[in-house]
């Protein structure tokens, strides 16, 4: 610790120095919280666990002080702080400070530490009300995670570290980060990955406390798993949306290694939020769920590793560094510890009940889990295979989009199919009659859809099969909603009231349905745009016209403006569809000579039916450029699924209470007095 620098008495350095001290302090306190919680819990010393927990509660405050110090340094252009010098400049507008904070390693560590500390406090609070023993161990585990992030900062990548010589100006911010989407996507994505730690700590805490088979912690784990899932999903969606609107190739997902590394924990978590329901309802899948959450956290840590400068090259490589390997070590340590704990407490994880039938919702859940893990495995395999190939055969190969589309595509479609069929089956056991009855309408809808699409002239059988599957899922859901509402309506409620009451009386189930509908919207958009988008690359000069499908467009002019750090060109297109005039569209391109990076923004005209998309490449002096023009059907539905998805998760998160006879309430005077 460089005491000399910390005790530097410059006035405006006070906040920064305070931030440094707070950082070190938070590491120490987190360390104490970890040790006190774990030791206190295992030796059954309640004051110690309480003390550890209270210590944990102060960590967010300390980390916030550091964060304030960093923000202050950015806002006052304090270039004596290395991180500020590397990620901002005098000409950078203050509002970009938010992005600059997580632009580099040290800052993102601080951000992650803040997220984990706040979520930990909330989760421990929540868990303590249900299962205090598990909460003590969980607090210790969360403290351990915090120690990693804080430790890396204190010893390796200090966001408040000072430079020996103060530069006159900073290096500025990466221009690609300067976009509205970048204000949300990276922090959300990082938050999603790190939030996996919370349900993991809850489950592992329960396991360590010997209460893995007691299931009273399951509700808490489920809620936090859903929160984590929601953050990850929105992060992925926003990333796709940002790629679509900014990167200018007309697509939104390229199976890039960093994208994959964010997808894999999402897949595991999706599996987990479903199978944890089986544990809640039937006391089954205890071992499996524990394995699943360990897999999820391992994949999340791997995601952080690949994100921070892993071995595979990617377009996302903003912050390459050797620090990535620390994450790998952290991941290995967590995995080893979890596996040990799992084996040690294996006995406590025996199932309470047995499976009644292979045809039941329970087995569908397990099938779904297996398929999700297969997709994760295939993604992982494809992402790391180039490394093996190079080591084993000296030939460098690339495993790119065609591989993943071909292999994962069908499995994902199978998952959508199960998403439709699973909820149709009852718990425990379904006879053939039930299956037929439940599948009647959805299956017919699927067949009708397929026939209609073929008759309408669509080719590409995979897309038709996909659409038919989507019809199956939607019909199942809507059919239930209609009949459920109707059944209540007959008992006296008006239709709207009946519908709301229906949802409110079955929140986990109907929240799930809403989420499934959102997923179908996403799938519809993805399928339509993957199979049926129409693209053309055209060389055009001002005055040229061209057509694509029903659209006709005329390139009017291009205007170039020089700014201090960039050269911007905006082209103008007059666009018509058939006979109607649609307006002016302005694809835009900017070039940053200092960073040698070009950024584009496509002009997109989006309707519910399709997107019309124009993107410009480099402009010549006479305004000539290559324009990519695209018609992407049904893409709007992909982005519209976001809000619906959030709504669904919120509905499913609201706890649903069952009435119970008074005898089941824990009497207030039955207390333990033994310490």
């Amino acid at each position: 610790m460089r005491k000399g620098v910390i005790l530097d008495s410059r006035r405006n350095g006070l906040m920064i120095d305070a931030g440094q001290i707070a950082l070190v302090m938070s590491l120490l306190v987190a360390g104490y919280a970890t040790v006190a919680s774990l030791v206190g819990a295992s030796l059954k010393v309640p004051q110690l666990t309480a003390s550890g927990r209270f210590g944990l509660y102060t960590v967010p405050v300390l980390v916030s002080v550091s964060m304030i110090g960093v923000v202050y340094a950015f806002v006052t252009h304090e270039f004596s702080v290395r991180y500020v010098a590397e990620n901002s400049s005098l000409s950078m507008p203050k509002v970009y400070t938010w992005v600059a904070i997580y632009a580099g390693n040290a800052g993102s560590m601080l951000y992650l530490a803040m997220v984990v500390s706040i979520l930990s406090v909330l989760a421990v609070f929540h868990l303590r009300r249900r299962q205090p023993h598990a909460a003590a161990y969980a607090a210790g585990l969360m403290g351990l995670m915090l120690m990693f992030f804080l430790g890396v900062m204190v010893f390796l990548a200090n966001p408040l570290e000072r430079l020996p010589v103060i530069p006159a100006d900073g290096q500025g911010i990466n221009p690609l980060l300067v976009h509205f989407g970048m204000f949300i996507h990276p922090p959300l994505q990082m938050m999603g990955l790190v939030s996996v730690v919370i349900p993991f700590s809850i489950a592992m805490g329960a396991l360590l406390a010997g209460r893995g088979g007691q299931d009273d912690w399951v509700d808490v784990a489920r809620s936090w798993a859903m929160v984590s899932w929601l953050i990850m999903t929105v992060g992925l969606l926003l990333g796709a949306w940002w790629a679509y609107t900014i990167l200018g190739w007309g697509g939104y997902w390229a199976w890039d290694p960093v994208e994959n590394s964010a997808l894999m924990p999402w897949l595991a978590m999706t599996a987990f939020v479903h199978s944890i329901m089986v544990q809640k309802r039937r006391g089954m899948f205890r071992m499996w769920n524990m394995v699943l959450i360990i897999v999820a956290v391992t994949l999340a840590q791997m995601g952080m590793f690949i994100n921070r400068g892993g071995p595979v090259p990617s377009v996302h490589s903003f912050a390459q560094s050797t620090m990535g390997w620390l994450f790998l070590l952290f991941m290995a340590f967590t995995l080893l510890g979890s596996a040990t704990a799992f084996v040690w407490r294996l006995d406590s994880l025996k199932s309470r009940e047995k499976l009644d039938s292979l045809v039941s919702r329970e087995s569908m859940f397990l099938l779904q889990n297996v398929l999700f893990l297969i997709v994760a495995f295939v993604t992982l395999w494809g992402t790391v295979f180039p490394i093996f190939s190079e080591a084993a055969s000296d030939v460098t190969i690339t495993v790119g989009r065609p591989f993943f589309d071909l292999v994962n595509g069908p499995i994902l479609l199978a998952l959508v199919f199960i998403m439709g069929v699973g909820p149709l089956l009852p718990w425990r056991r379904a006879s053939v009659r039930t299956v037929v009855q439940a599948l009647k309408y959805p299956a017919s809808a699927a067949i009708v859809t397929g026939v209609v699409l073929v008759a309408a002239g669509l080719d590409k059988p995979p897309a038709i099969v996909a659409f038919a599957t989507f019809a199956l899922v939607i019909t199942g859901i809507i059919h239930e909603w209609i009949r459920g509402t109707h059944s209540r309506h007959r008992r006296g409620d008006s239709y709207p009231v009946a519908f709301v009451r229906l949802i409110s009386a079955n929140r986990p189930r109907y929240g799930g349905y809403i989420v499934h509908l959102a997923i179908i919207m996403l799938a519809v958009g993805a399928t339509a745009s993957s199979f049926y988008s129409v693209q053309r690359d055209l060389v055009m000069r001002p005055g040229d016209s061209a057509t694509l499908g029903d659209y006709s467009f005329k390139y009017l002019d291009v205007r170039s403006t020089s700014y201090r750090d960039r050269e911007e060109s905006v082209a103008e297109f007059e666009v018509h569809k058939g006979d109607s005039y649609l307006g002016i569209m302005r694809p835009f391109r900017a070039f940053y000579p200092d960073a040698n990076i070009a950024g584009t923004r496509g002009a997109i005209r989006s309707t519910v039916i399709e997107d019309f998309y124009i993107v410009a490449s480099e402009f010549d002096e006479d305004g000539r450029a290559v324009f990519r023009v695209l018609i992407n059907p049904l893409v709007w539905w992909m982005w519209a699924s976001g809000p619906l998805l959030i709504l669904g998760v919120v509905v499913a998160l609201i706890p649903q209470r069952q009435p119970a006879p008074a005898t089941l309430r824990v009497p207030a005077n039955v207390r333990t007095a033994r310490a």
Partner: protein
Amino acid sequence: MTNHGPMKKGLHTRHRRLWGWFAVAVAVGIFAAACALSDDISDNDLRIQQLNKTIMCPVCPGESIDQSQNQLSAQMRSIVSEQVHEGRSDEQIKAFFVERYTQSVLLEPPQKGFSLLVWLLPPAGMVAAIVLLILALRVMRRSANESPDDIQETVSLSDAERSRYFARLEAVLDYEEGDPTMPKDWNEEGSNPGLAKERSDD
């Protein structure tokens, strides 16, 4: 919640069902309209686009030349275009690029040699996983927590008790969450001990 069972069918219901099918047809119609776009793209152009999506830009990691916007990609795209118009086949064009930039310029791994492994493992893994799944389900069917503590064994219900309890249950099943008229010997908080109020600190 007195259960009327599944709804009886009547003329009313039949009308509603017709509307349902009509809605489905309209929705599907929209999909069809959106997707069945007039294809005024020439076959050659389609081939070019497909090829562009399988060739990687050598200097921008992971991006296809279709995606990437830099100079080199633009040049490579025009080479592809030229060769397609010359009549060369997809394989020939790909081989052309492999010769200049090594195998890694293709985004799709080759289907021979060591790379065959990348293609084989997923289906093999899938088969293995399904087999394991079926085995696991079989095991779950047979085993159970057969401990003598299980209350289903130790607590037996006489017929009279059973009807008494069933009646109690029936009485409360109709009530929904938050219904103030629920009988007094049932409580609203449910059975969750964690929701009881005796936790004093924090």
